[in-house]
């Protein structure tokens, strides 16, 4: 047993922080990130899920408003695995692929942000052009559109299943990253901000809010790494991903609550950056389908009473 990111994995996560913060797609492409999960024999780097957990977390931390993880973590390796001609463009970062959610709602697909939109539904992958009406979402930087009109991608069920698992993993890792961003921002704020003659961060109630937020995030993060390992080794992978998403969504939600509360009124204005991360976290949480995931975990434990 050995359960922690390797030095290489940590270094990779560090390397992408700056281009992610700058939303610099070309710089990311230049680092071969979009080819990371593409098998070596298909011209990629042949990395695996645990190698990219830190990168996905960094994408969450940056709240990057591009279909970054959809392209790098889901679409590029799927297209390559399927032998699709679009694979090369995706893996090189020349094309952006967004991932559709329920009813075709597709983050980062509005106004030509994405070249293609990938749909994953019940074991079937479809792909189409980025199109559709814009959707008004809680997080306006989500730049979502209602995507339609995709055609089936010739990919085997195992490939599609792995893509679905990866989509869940990306969600979980990004939620942890968002939670950490909100926590860091809040820690910085409460050290500076004074009330009643002392830094707000010296009050026990504020300390305990932030200690609890830390607790949630620090226990969700290993669950995400464990899920990445499970997908990488196809070992109870579905349940591992479900567990990671449930805990990450909860941790990010609670971190957002604590962050807004500890900021006081300033956390409530769009002039301050906290709202961006909070809204992104709420948007991802809504897309995380935690209810269905909890039901699947319960069924896996043979807990009675699930099916209605």
């Amino acid at each position, binding site marked *: 047993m050995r359960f922690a990111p390797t030095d290489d994995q940590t270094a990779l996560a560090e390397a992408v922080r700056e281009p992610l913060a700058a939303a610099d797609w070309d710089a990311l492409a230049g680092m071969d990130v979009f080819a990371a999960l593409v098998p070596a024999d298909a011209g990629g780097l042949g990395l695996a899920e645990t190698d990219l957990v830190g990168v996905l977390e960094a994408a969450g931390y940056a709240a990057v408003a591009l279909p970054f993880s959809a392209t790098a973590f889901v679409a590029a390796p799927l297209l390559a695995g399927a032998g699709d001609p679009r694979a090369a463009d995706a893996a090189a970062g020349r094309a952006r692929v967004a991932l559709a959610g329920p009813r075709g709602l597709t983050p980062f697909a509005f106004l030509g942000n994405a070249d293609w939109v990938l749909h994953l539904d019940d074991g079937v992958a479809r792909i189409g052009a980025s199109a559709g009406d814009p959707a008004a979402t809680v997080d306006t930087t989500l730049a979502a559109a209602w995507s339609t009109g995709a055609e089936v991608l010739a990919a085997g069920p195992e490939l599609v299943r792995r893509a679905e698992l990866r989509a869940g993993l990306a969600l979980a890792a990004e939620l942890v990253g968002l939670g950490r961003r909100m926590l860091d921002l809040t820690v910085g704020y409460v050290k500076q901000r004074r009330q009643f003659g002392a830094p707000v961060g010296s009050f026990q109630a504020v300390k305990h809010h932030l200690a609890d937020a830390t607790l949630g995030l620090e226990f969700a993060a290993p669950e995400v790494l464990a899920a990445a390992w499970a997908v990488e080794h196809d070992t109870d992978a579905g349940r591992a991903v479900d567990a990671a998403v449930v805990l990450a969504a909860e941790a990010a939600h609670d971190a957002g609550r604590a962050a807004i509360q500890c900021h006081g009124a300033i956390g409530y204005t769009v002039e301050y950056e906290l709202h961006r991360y909070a809204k992104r976290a*709420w948007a991802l949480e809504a897309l995380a389908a935690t209810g269905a995931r909890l039901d699947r975990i319960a069924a896996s434990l043979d807990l009675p009473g699930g099916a209605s």
Partner: protein
Amino acid sequence: MTRVDLSDTPAEAAFREEARAWLRANVPATPLPSGDTREGFAAHLEWERRLFDAGWAVVSWPKEYGGRDASLWQWLVFEEEYYAAGAPQRVTQNGIFLLAPTLFEFGSPEQRDTLLPRMAAAQDLWCQGWSEPGAGSDLAAIASRAERADGGWRLSGQKTWTTRGAFCTHLFGLFRTDPAAPRHRGLTYFLVPLDAPGVTVRGFGRLDGDEGFAEVFFDDVFVPDGAVLGGVDEGWRVAMATTGSERGLTLRSPGRFLHTAERLVALAVAQADRLRPATRERVTRAWLRARAYHHFTLHQVTGLVEGRPPGARSSLNKLYWSRLDIDLHEVALELLGAEAVLDTPWTRGFQFSLAGPIYAGTNEIQRNIVAERVLGLPRA
């Protein structure tokens, strides 16, 4: 004989029926746009004025100021009916619910006669100037100053997080009149027209997407002596009375949460085919809490009517409704599932609810108040 009685008296029932009938006939069929946007604010003003013309704007006020001398019970009944009818949020609430009680308690006859009718008629629109960049929950840290001038005062400084400040015409707030006095002393409560020379109002955005915050800058603004409410250097005491109103009974009537709870139940009922049982239980619990808030408030009003003012116990009220409001909306988000990614009244309501534990004295402060002033625990 005096008994416990949860039913309307005949007079209360008649009042309820009258309110219900008028609301049924007059509430806009489609919801108004948010009152925290410029367009929505205008639509709300039109509604507020219709309400005033029919005598429903300030039911609990004396008739001479535009009210109908309603009892606290009638006020509760009206609020229940108002929300049950789906009537719009009150954009005049800062004036009516926060400033007016202070005017009734501390205002001169002239201040009352001048200000209250115009407030009730939504002609003067009041915003609250409490927070400053250096003073949030800690009102004693207020740094904005008022200096003696001939026949009045000159104000300077900055207020911030002023809700709907960009759409209002007047501001009430605290300014420091005696810089040498200790923190809580030397503050004075001022009433300031926002069109006075030297006032600059700058609106900015809010978490829930509305634009209804403002910063207000005072650059040597002259106000006459009559702008002082409740005595020079008495502002802390006066403000605490208003803060009591804000935190307590008048800010959040149970009707509002009962209505939200009913909407939540309706949302759950509408998804019969896919309602998860665990979520069903959360809906039930949230509904229960709205009910408990209703009964707690009836108990508190009875105490008020019979001469047992709630005092520090009004902090319990604020702690409960602010948590309840978040609960109701979090359960709604759970019901919405993936739909919660969309910009909807429920998602906006959730974001707004998160302000509940922050404004009107953070819930951390409220818990301290309960511990120290209700339970008698020692101060740190």
